[in-house]
């Protein structure tokens, strides 16, 4: 049998758990600082606003384009982003709670027609989100995450034991915060699709965690008293092969999506990429460490 990971591998995961917990807490703190200072680059789904993706037949100077567009009277910031590497495709975004949004896109089109001539460009895509809709999308995004976490917490408590559930949920919160933190660092656009990616990460990470918990439960079996870290180690080592392989295969797919999937999928794939790596790590370390902690705490009491 061909293996990456030897069958009799025995890494002392739990021995280093203090160190890795420390690493995780640091990462979470850094992420939170980033989120609150650098801020998240929210897309118009959440801020409200309008965006147009336009492709010119020939290359266009970004500065000229920007200048031409500032004529459009608007209370909100205009962003011009160049897409692709041929300087002919741009994403024009007005973010904010502009009142006359539905005419904004036509104004922009008119300005482009006047400046560059009708027929020299093609409007690929337009988006407009009014202030009311923006607020509602924000709310639904938030509640979606909340309910998903709650649902999973309940399920884990039922399927396993209340000792296991804080570990599972902490692991998920850890994954979400760090993923959002990296998005803040790179200032990638945080849109509805990003929320979909976060929920997918939640689903995937809990997947991992459940497999590991299952094995831990099996390994601990009938042994009474406080769960020994060595038993957890055994379980982790036994599932290590599977953990690594699954992450690998999923990464194949997500990497392919990231490089070849096109603009819309790219940010989505990036979130998944980060989430899978962080999620695997957290399932192995955070979930199990917390579970041990809970077990120790509650066994001491009795």
């Amino acid at each position, binding site marked *: *049998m*061909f293996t990456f990971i030897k069958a009799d591998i025995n890494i002392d995961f739990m021995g280093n758990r203090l160190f890795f917990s420390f690493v995780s807490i640091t990462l979470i703190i850094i992420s939170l600082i980033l989120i609150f200072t650098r801020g998240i680059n929210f897309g118009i789904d959440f801020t409200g606003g309008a965006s147009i993706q336009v492709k010119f037949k020939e290359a266009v100077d970004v500065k000229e384009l920007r200048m031409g567009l500032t004529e459009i*009277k608007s209370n909100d910031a205009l962003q011009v982003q160049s897409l692709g590497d041929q300087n002919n495709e741009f994403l024009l975004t007005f973010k904010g709670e502009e*009142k*006359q949004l*539905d005419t904004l896109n036509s104004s922009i089109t008119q300005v482009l027609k006047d400046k560059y001539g009708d027929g020299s460009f*093609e*409007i*690929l*895509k*337009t*988006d*407009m*989100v*009014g202030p*009311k*809709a923006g607020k509602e*999308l924000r709310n*639904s*995004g938030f509640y*979606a995450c909340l*309910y*998903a976490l709650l*649902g*999973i917490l309940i*399920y884990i408590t039922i*399927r396993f034991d209340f000792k296991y559930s804080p570990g599972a949920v902490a692991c998920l919160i850890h994954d979400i915060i760090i993923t959002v933190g990296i998005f803040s660092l790179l200032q990638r656009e945080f849109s509805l*699709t990003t*929320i*979909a990616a976060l*929920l*997918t990460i939640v*689903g995937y990470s*809990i*997947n991992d965690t*459940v*497999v590991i918990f*299952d*094995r831990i439960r099996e390994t601990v079996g009938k042994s009474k008293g406080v769960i020994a870290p060595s038993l957890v180690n055994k379980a982790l080592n036994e*599932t290590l*092969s*599977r953990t690594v*392989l*699954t992450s*690998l*295969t*999923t990464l*194949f*797919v*997500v990497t*392919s*999506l990231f490089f*070849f*999937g*096109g603009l*819309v*999928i790219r940010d*989505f*794939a990036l979130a*998944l990429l980060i989430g899978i790596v962080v999620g695997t790590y957290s399932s192995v370390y955070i979930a199990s460490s917390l579970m041990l902690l809970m077990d120790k705490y509650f066994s001491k009491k009795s």
Partner: protein
Amino acid sequence: MKIGKWKIYFTALLAIGSLLIILPSFLKVDELPYWVTKILPEKKIKLGLDLQGGLHLVLGVDVDKVVNENSDRFIERIKQQLKDDKIEIDSSARVLDSSEFFIKFKNITDIDKIKKIIASHNVIKHLTSYPLELRYDFSEDYKKSIKDRAVNQTIEAIRNRIDEFGVNEPTIQAQGFDKIVIQLPGIKDPNRAKGVIGKTAKLEFKLVIEDENFSPVKINELIKDAETAGIKYDEKLIPYNEYLKNLNEFLVGKLPSNADLLFERAENKDTGTKAMLPYLVEKTAIVTGDHLADAYVSFDNQTNEPFVSFELNAIGAKFFEELTGKNIGKKLAIILDNTIFSAPVVQSKIGSQGRITMGRSRSLNSMQTEAEDLALVLRAGALPAQLTFEEERVVGPSLGSDSIKQGANSMLLGAFAVFLFMLIYYRKAGIIADTALALNMLFITSSLILLEATLTLPGIAGIALTVGMAVDANIIIFERIREEIRSGNSPKASVESGFDKALSTIIDSNLTTGIAGIVLLQYGTGPIKGFAVTLLIGILFTVFTSVFISKWIFRFLINRNKFKTISI
């Protein structure tokens, strides 16, 4: 094991069935021989707007305004009833921005009579009483029924308009209690469609009030007063209707009590300068768009300019005759969405026909388009409520097809990498895993088609993701089998044991991903809903193919060949 053979046949049958279902979406029907097209089902895969291009609109319906207008009409009716009963009222009015209203009356002894009259309309909820004042509001149930009706009527009116516009497979649905979602796939002129959808098309005929105390000069002065008070019209900053509302509120008391100030928008054909001409018109309209029997485009004999010719129904014709008969020599304003189209002088009693001239655009072509759209909208019926464009997404057709290509290619590439890996790592058992995976993808796609679920770009990503995660189930099983073999069990026993032990883990982990998927389905819109659907369907088939089908294939092969060792 005879049963084992039948399970394999069953699987093969499902596979062939699925293949037949998905083929129409990928092949061009005219290139196929006739007999093939006979057995293939008709359905093609339903593509989301982000893949086929089109317009997605979310409209907000101003349901509160409809309720308030209902309240206004109710107050008028009550006033009439009280007048008929000779009960003296001091004043009555609706509270601003609410449907609450109050009635102030003169004789305290009348209080019971008034209460009884109002209570006879059982949609009313009594709020408070003061010595000489009674306050009321509509009941919550009644308000809700008004709102629901407004939304449904709006959906009907919009559906009529879109039908006339000729769009393939449009979707028009209510969302929540005051929103409408419209999807127009493949539409070529989204702006025109928006115009047709959004026009309230409230047609009204109102008499122009020509009062000597309110000469054009005086009216202009009043408008300037309003401007100093901050009420000014700027096309880019404030919608026309809102400006109009603010203006008329400001002028309450300064205008005759039965008058409203409205504008005619005129454009000088030669110079192109635009102007807004003010008129005083009566508040109530006797003849409205509800009385229209038909509307169509005609051309003026002399100028060749297009105009909209309308015909009134029997009741409308009667009212119109009365109206014009009594007011010969006076001006009658033709008002569309609170803008005066024209205000011609009534020359004679007019029966059932009339014309609305297009005075606004410069080119004959755009005048004609405008006339066609107006006629369409008048025919299809006015919208009972005002609409705001909450969300709008337009995807051009070329982006759509590019997205499909990119999405599909990246998915196939990723899937291929996984397939290859399973072969290398697990050798012959990898073939079984790959077969299960391929069947998985096949079943997911055919389910999407059968369920008429919409495939979006995130949905394609969802299928790709499912492949990556489905392989997990196989990995769990195979690693278990390897463990069993290492502990010295026979191949047959290892396989059975491996599947058994892995089953509960696989179900647990897929169920939790399922929870995330269900939440996404509930709270997601559009493309994200598409992603949630493919994810959930994917989970279902993952369990089926990875656990059951792989097991059947393994068992079948082992029983047939009595392996001493298996290649895993």
